């Protein structure tokens, strides 16, 4: 073929695997060509396990000059199950990065309210760490983290150290507690009465399961946030990542092209987006 195939992944090696929960593992991956991925927070890659297939996975590490990057993967489908069976040193395929990213430049000087529901912490972690590496560039940083149970909480050690930082406000909750849990119990919106914000300066950045958005957006608006101060990242079946295969379409929008990161104001009237 004269021109290159957009479906041809680059090879990459698994450098490290860290078990996060019974369902999720963190993979440290290094492209075999030694070049950094060049992603921005919020973007995703198409991951290949050869012989099984390909699926979209968001990048969880902040951009840096090193080639290694991180993906936190839930065991949920064929490819992610196969990925969970791989070992350090195994080779996978990577295409990307694809999609839109969190507006890290536009939000400089603003207060950031991160709303992470369950796996939503995975792409948000990229932005949170990016912002913390440039702490002076941003105003207040508030992180809300909700999980189903205490055992489902990702990045436990890392989040514990976040929670101790004086320059970051951290609130967490679980839907269902256990004997050891002393914290808040309830859905993520039960955290909203616990803090105040300046709605003019604050931007909410939310990632979570589909059901979370309706309630979290309503809670953010109740705090005075305008629609265009709410940023979401949406999940769809982004099979090709190229705006061709049709699976991630919501109305005329291809989530893999115009998303997955959207300004809420731009999609609030779009049929299928948040319904």
């Amino acid at each position, binding site marked *: *073929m*004269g*021109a*290159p*195939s*957009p*479906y*041809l*992944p680059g*090879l990459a090696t698994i450098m490290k695997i860290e078990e996060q929960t019974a369902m999720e593992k963190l993979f440290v991956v290094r492209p075999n060509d030694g070049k950094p991925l060049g992603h921005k927070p919020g973007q995703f890659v198409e991951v*290949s396990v*050869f*012989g*099984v*297939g*390909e*699926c979209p996975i968001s990048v969880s590490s902040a951009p840096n000059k090193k080639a290694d990057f991180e993906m936190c993967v*839930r065991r*949920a*489908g*064929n*490819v*992610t199950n196969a990925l969970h069976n791989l070992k350090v040193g195994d*080779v*996978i*395929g990577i295409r990307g990065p694809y999609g839109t990213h969190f507006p890290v430049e536009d939000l400089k000087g603003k207060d950031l309210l991160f709303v992470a529901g369950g796996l939503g912490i995975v792409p948000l972690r990229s932005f949170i760490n990016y912002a913390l590496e440039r702490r002076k560039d941003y105003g207040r940083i508030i992180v809300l983290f909700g999980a189903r149970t205490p055992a489902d909480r990702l990045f436990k050690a890392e989040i514990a150290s976040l929670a101790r930082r004086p320059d970051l406000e951290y609130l967490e909750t679980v839907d269902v507690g256990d004997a050891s849990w002393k914290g808040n119990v309830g859905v993520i919106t039960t955290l909203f009465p616990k803090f105040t914000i300046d709605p003019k300066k604050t931007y909410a950045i939310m990632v979570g399961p*589909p059901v979370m958005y309706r309630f979290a957006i309503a809670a953010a608006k109740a705090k005075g946030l305008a629609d265009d101060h709410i940023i979401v990242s949406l*999940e*769809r*079946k982004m*099979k*090709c990542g*190229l*705006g*061709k*295969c*049709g*699976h*991630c*379409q*919501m*109305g*005329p929008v291809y989530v893999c092209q115009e998303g997955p990161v959207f300004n809420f104001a731009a999609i609030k009237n779009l*049929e*299928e987006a948040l319904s």
Partner: protein
Amino acid sequence: MSLAIIEKEGLHLFVAELLRQKNTVVGVKDQSAVSSIPGDSGFYTYAPINSPGEMTLSFDVTLIPPKKYLLPAYEQLLTFNLSPGSIKADAPKEELIIFGVHPYDIIAINQMDKVFSAVPQDNHYLERRKRTTIIGIDSVKVAPRAFWSSMGADTVAGGFDLMLTDIGQCYVVDVGSKKGASLLKMAPRTREAAPAEVKERDKVRAEARKRCDANRLSFSYLELPSLLDGNEEHVIWEEKSHLCFSCGTCNLVCPTCYCFDVRDDVSIDLKKGSRNRTWDGCLLSDFARVAGGGNFRGHRADRYRHRFYRKGQFIYRRFGDIACVGCGRCSAQCPSDIADPVAVFNRLKEGI
């Protein structure tokens, strides 16, 4: 550009010459003879031919559109070793002449060209397209469910290498590309069309259009995007989709449906594998289903509605084309007869 004439007997010689030069020629075959179903009137299908007599240029519509040669139902994209070390992209090598494509199908191909050449380009499609020669034929026979005359698809201005019109005693030929011009040189005894013959072509086209007008939209197809606006909650989506089997036939036979799935297949020795593209359809129940079980279009009515919006509005908003060319295939093939765009769109227009 002036029009040429190929005599009727010259056409057979032309096709024979193309075959003699070792071209792979795909033509329309009349399959009425092969059907074993009593009372089945048969169907037309595109297939490679070995002699000119195997193909016909007098057909109403083929069962499957010519997209199957540009976006094959099963296409190898990549090959790899399972213990990775090498992975490479596959490219189509064969050159193909598709002989006998109606204007509505050429318009559909033009739309696919736009979709796959939009950045990021899909070079697998584009490479195959580059290797394909399209020889069009104006529609004379009209399929019972066709409505291309009301979709602006009765004639086509470009996208073909040659375009033939059967005016009875001979074919008028429009040359659409350099490739077409050099191919035409292989045809025997061609000559320039006389003004009367050009007029005759207009007449043939007008008559076909008139026959097709028997089944038509009650309004201009250009109104479709605005007509659909605000009809998201119309009762028709629930009502009609109650009969939907979610079989995806409407997607399968549609010349402008190009959605696909990609899957890996492994060789029997478990050493090598390939990544392959297959057709997919938005009417199938798990089309928008993600790992973990969530389905972003889990309701049948939503999938049914999605298709009509995609045809009449979404593709238009993205690429500027109404993605229905009026071939009538979905309408004719749908097992429960709920796919007819004319019925759906006219009802929305009536506002009931």
